[in-house]
């Protein structure tokens, strides 16, 4: 059965925006959670024009405040009485040597701790929850740490491992868990980078995510060829890996 109610967390992310605009994504109801409330309300207006049939429910929340987890979980559980799914897009890439401790902590909260605590709350009792599908946008950066972005990569590796375990635990309950690992995507997150080889468009990534949800895939790389690039990278002996620069 195709889920018709979705919660998008980090709904103002460019990839989320592309999914919302993708014409084959036709939910009945959407809960959009994001920090920037002005942008969120603009997106709600945009949705009213593009997809007037969708019921939208905007929620303003700062995901670095992990004490808000229980509140969000209870809002979600109260709002949805039909099967629903969660797609977690939010992420922070704050990865230069000068990043302050606060920033690194916020990055860990948004990329890893918040989604983990939220899912723990929602799946306390997997047989009772209406949540039937969860999707998290991780990153290929979590597959192997590189000098350029290992702090970020570590948060993505953590969520990857967490989801792998959660998937196994929820399997018998028929709950679908999808990990999405994009390569570079042309979004605001990487505007400051001068070299972004093989970067994909957010539209392409959004489409891949939606197709993977429909096919109930478990882990996808997007674009697809990233899987093979990462396969090679993961298997490079550490000695050789030390020497490559990118």
């Amino acid at each position, binding site marked *: 059965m195709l889920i018709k109610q979705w919660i998008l967390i980090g709904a*103002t992310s460019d990839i989320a925006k592309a999914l919302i605009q993708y014409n084959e994504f036709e939910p009945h109801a959407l809960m959009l959670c994001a920090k*920037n409330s*002005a*942008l969120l309300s*603009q997106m709600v*207006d945009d949705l009213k*024009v593009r997809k007037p049939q969708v019921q939208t429910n905007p929620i303003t929340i700062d995901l670095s405040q992990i004490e808000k987890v229980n509140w969000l979980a209870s809002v979600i559980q109260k709002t949805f009485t039909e099967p629903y799914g969660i797609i977690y897009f939010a992420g922070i890439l704050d990865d230069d040597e000068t990043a302050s401790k606060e920033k690194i902590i916020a990055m860990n909260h948004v990329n890893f701790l918040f989604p983990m605590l939220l899912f723990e709350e929602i799946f306390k009792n997997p047989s009772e929850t209406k949540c039937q599908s969860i999707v998290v946008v991780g990153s290929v950066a979590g597959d192997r740490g590189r000098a350029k972005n290992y702090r970020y990569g570590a948060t993505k590796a953590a969520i990857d491992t967490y989801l792998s375990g959660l998937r196994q635990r929820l399997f018998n309950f028929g709950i679908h868990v999808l990990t999405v690992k994009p390569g570079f995507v042309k979004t*605001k997150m990487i505007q*400051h980078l001068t070299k972004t080889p093989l970067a994909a468009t957010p539209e392409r990534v959004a489409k891949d995510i939606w197709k993977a949800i429909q096919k109930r895939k478990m882990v996808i790389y997007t674009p697809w060829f990233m899987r093979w690039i990462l396969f090679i990278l993961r298997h490079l002996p550490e000695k050789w890996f030390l020497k490559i620069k990118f």
Partner: protein
Amino acid sequence: MKIVHQLLSGWGRVNPRDSRVCYPTTPFEIEKVLGGTNEPIIARGLGRSYGDAAVSDAITVNLSTFNFFQSWNPQHGIIRVSAGTSLKQILDFVVPQGWFLPVTPGTQYCTVGGCVAADVHGKNHHIQGSFSKFVHSFDLMCSGGSLLTCNLQTNSDLFFATLGGMGLTGVIVWVELQLTPVQTIYITERKRRIQSWEECIEAFQEDNPNEPYAVAWVDATTSIGKGELWYGRHTNEDELPKLVKPYPKKKSKEPWTVPNLFQNSLVNRRTITLFNRLKYLNSPKRSQTTVVPYWEFFYPLDRLLEWNRLYGKSGFIQYQYVVPFETNPTFHRQIVELCLQNGQIPSLAVFKRMGKGIQEELPTYDHSLKYLPTLSFPKQGWTLALDFPMTNGLLPLLSRLDQMVIEAGGRVYLAKDVRLSPETFRKMYPELSIWKNVCRKYNDEIRFQSSLSKRLQIC
């Protein structure tokens, strides 16, 4: 608001500048950028203007991610969008509902803000006029940071100054557009071969309001004026074969992207000649009519993304002029001859007819004014756009063309320009001084500046 360093240029990739760029996504963020610095600022859309109009060595406000629909009236075809919305996003949404853009340039990868700021024209300018004729109103953010609504009734002087104002009056934030109804996604296209400049001009003059779109490609590797003329009109539903749906789900093919690999231009004397010869050979000897989806008719160049990379690191220049109808038809031949004599072969030449510009329609707006305060390019006459790979000797040649264009009473399009001088610019745009008065009336300081405005000493 995150500010990132980027090397920016126009579509022609000439003279890149180190710019500090930000990507606001709400009006509030645009205001914050304005309030957060005293440095000059210029708005940028999708960077499809060829020259340095959307480039600055100070701050560039890139609006391409400020793309949202605000309201839509499907009964009357009125849509209100944020300025960073691309024409493609609008078309993808409105065409299946039976609406189309009344005026469109040759690419759908440009923003509504960019189309207003350059007052772009389409293949139907001689019948429909320019983009601005279908702008009901827009909201503009001037140096003060507040939003001013501009239309024919409210702040009308600022309305006109912003049309063709190349971003120098402020940042366009929201735009309300009138669309035109269509019955299908198709265009009935008629092609014919032309053998000379005279024949081309004659063919354009056979006025046929049933075929509102007309454009000619000319082989400018010789000065004869051989080429091909395309006419087009929106196909009606009852003209389609039975099995063809008026709004099929089919989409244009995913475009290819040219990689950023080429140091040297792939576009050179040899390839240009080959391309133009083949194109001419491929044109039908007798007039030929076909039905094609709208993107094939309007946007053939969009099939290849980032095609400007084919010109290598040094880039290219497009020179587009308009001269009055009275100009001797041999004018265009002389222009091409002069280029060839100087060893500059145009890679692409596109010829169109233009109807009245907004300046010439002044009487319908206001009787009391001598000039409308606008820098909009289109005016009645013939317009020729020539693409040249950037090589030594090109700039002096173009300066000579400027003189010929001025003598003929014509002008050059700012959205394509990287090299006009302040003096020649003033001769081409006599409206400048009254335009400036309006610009100053609404901006207490000269906040909006681009590489173009500095080069032309506009502000």
